[in-house]
């Protein structure tokens, strides 16, 4: 039916067809989300004049998927361990994969619940690493040695200590 298109147009046509999978929300949901604006924009007490004390929070491990990286028999696919920690309204997701250096790990993480700048400090074994996170609150730490790991995440308003977790030597 259609004449041959170049590769770019062909790819665009394929994406258009797949984009049909986007599902529209029911109208009542859309209206409810729109109406939330009126409630949220009511004047609240300003905190600009009074600095808040730094909140120190202890996170709780809420999810720990131990993948093939830590099992004696390596499964197919990239070995990954995913952990999720929660401290009030803030979640921290970590993904542990094999590091580029032999015998080490790599930790990729993301903090959800606060969009301000921050940084993460890690103590694993006897290795200490620090890294600021990106605008999307993502960070990477490498090389991470095996051992007991502790992470502390900090912003201007809070500090979250993650409970320790163990990383065995990569098999």
């Amino acid at each position: 039916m259609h004449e041959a298109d170049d590769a770019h147009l062909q790819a665009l046509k394929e994406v258009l067809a797949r984009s049909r999978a986007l599902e529209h929300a029911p109208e009542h949901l859309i209206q409810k989300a729109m109406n939330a604006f009126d409630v949220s924009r009511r004047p609240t007490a300003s905190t600009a004049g009074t600095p808040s004390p730094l909140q120190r929070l202890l996170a709780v491990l809420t999810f720990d998927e131990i993948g093939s990286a830590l099992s004696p028999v390596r499964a197919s696919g990239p070995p990954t361990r995913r952990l999720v920690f929660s401290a009030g309204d803030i979640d921290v997701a970590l993904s542990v994969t094999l590091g580029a250096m032999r015998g080490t790990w790599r930790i990729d993480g993301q903090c959800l619940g606060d969009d301000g700048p921050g940084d993460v400090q890690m103590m694993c074994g006897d290795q200490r690493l620090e890294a600021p996170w990106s605008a999307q609150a993502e960070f990477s730490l490498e090389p991470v040695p095996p051992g007991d790991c502790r992470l502390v995440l900090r912003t201007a308003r809070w500090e979250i200590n993650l409970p320790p977790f163990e990383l065995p030597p990569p098999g």
Partner: protein
Amino acid sequence: MASEQCTIPATRQGRSTLAMLGGMIARTQSGRGLRVDWNELSDGELVRRCAAGERAAWSVLVRRFEALVYTIPRRARLPDAAVEDVFQTTFLRLLEHLDRLQQPDRLREWLVTTAKFETWRVWRDAARRDGPGDDALELVADTQPLPDEFLAEVQTWHAVQRGLDRIEPRCRQIIEWLYLAETPLSYDEIAQRLGMPAGSLSPTRQRCLGKLRVLLESA
């Protein structure tokens, strides 16, 4: 960014948001009333207007991203009530963070990340609440309900549909009839509907796809 016309597009389902929003008029800082072409406002500009208290901008923003946010918990096969929770919570979180987004022009990515985490939260809470049992194990076993590849692709889909919102109506119609309809129309049917010779449809189609591609590349 102001223009002389208010062009709120109809959604893919054919509902007219123009009727709902009643042809919004936005006031500039000088106080003059000017009609705003909401379609041409970038995501970042929409966020800034919302943060400044423009209710109309928030309505446009919700309309622009509702399908993106809704698709994510649906893809994770959450129950309807949980999907609604994720949808509302995601937009509520955005309202809380309007003043603090570091990169407002990357709003699409922010919304996908937030919806993903809200979906995980619901999914995790259900697993804890249900306790050990087949349902909980099935939830935990499905550790990749939202693989990164899908999350990247859903953003591409949204970008393409956003491009369609901005393209001229004739091109949008042709593309929708050919590639987005449940049953694509034939060239003859489209030509007849548009009152154009069937032979000119193919080059028009190519031109329209080319325009869409340029829009996407410049976004």
